[in-house]
């Protein structure tokens, strides 16, 4: 009796799955609001200000290594092209894996900030700053865009 060897012909393609495409969601949630500013009087907004600090939200898969870079404007622009100088101190950036304002980890917003996405998959970035109007600062509304760039650096 012969053994019947039956070998299934196996054919096909075995492909190692490519590394999963990293999905990042980044949104701006709140403007950095200096409010009413008086000529000649600098106005500071702390990153812990509950209503005026700028805020972004980042979502990504837990464990994803991310790098955050803020493109900070040197000034806001107002009526007739008038400029209102802005400065950002080394502790004007804040990172928190939680939604609690006071649990921020400070960072220098003038430099990239790297972190690993925690298990909740969501973090927030806070931003403070100082506006310095001159005594002759023209009255009116001033604004400038503050762009956050988030990149995956490891996974």
């Amino acid at each position: 009796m012969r053994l019947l060897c039956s070998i299934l012909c196996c054919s096909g393609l075995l492909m190692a799955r490519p590394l999963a495409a990293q999905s990042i969601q980044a949104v701006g949630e709140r403007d950095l609001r200096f409010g009413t500013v008086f000529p000649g009087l600098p106005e500071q907004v702390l990153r812990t200000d509950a209503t005026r600090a700028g805020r972004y939200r980042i979502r990504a898969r837990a464990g994803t290594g991310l790098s955050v870079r803020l493109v900070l404007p040197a000034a806001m622009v107002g009526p007739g092209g008038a400029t209102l100088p802005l400065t950002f101190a080394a502790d004007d950036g804040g990172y928190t894996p939680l939604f609690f304002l006071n649990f921020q980890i400070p960072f220098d917003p003038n430099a990239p900030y790297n972190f690993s996405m925690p298990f909740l998959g969501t973090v927030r970035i806070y931003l403070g700053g100082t506006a310095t109007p001159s005594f002759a600062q023209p009255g009116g509304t001033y604004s400038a865009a503050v762009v956050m760039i988030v990149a995956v650096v490891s996974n």
Partner: protein
Amino acid sequence: MTKRTPLGLALVLSLGTAATLQAQTASINATARVLSPAVVSGVEDLRFGDVIDGTQKTIPATNSNSGRFTIQGATNANVDISFTLPATLAGPGGSTLAVDNWTGEHGNNAARGAGAAFTPLNGGTSLNTDLGATSGDVYNVYVGARVTSAGGENPGAYTGQIDMTVSYTGN
């Protein structure tokens, strides 16, 4: 007869590509509203008029000859007001008349006699107040003083300068 099926095995191994770097951007705005600078004007001089040699003459802030400054600025803005006050009026040939006993009155759109009294000081903040609540309001500050002739001064016109400075406090 046993047939043997050919063994065929095809295995293709495809390695995944390296991790793809992705970047996302998000934007917020930095915003501010700057109040218009306060406009301060000296409108009326403090006029002592004729002063008899060897006498004193007082012009109170409520007098029609008192000096008047006006302030126009951001509505409801809190301001500090300070002065630089002359100690003397200078006249012909180096003669001087002493000036002291400064008095003041202030108020939004206030006429003389209808404002609140204060004492102007030389240097430092003399007054902290809020400007009017309506755009276009004029805040008036009146100043008066006393001039003293010690006697023997040269006759003629005597003058001095009063400076008033207004600063927003941000409060």
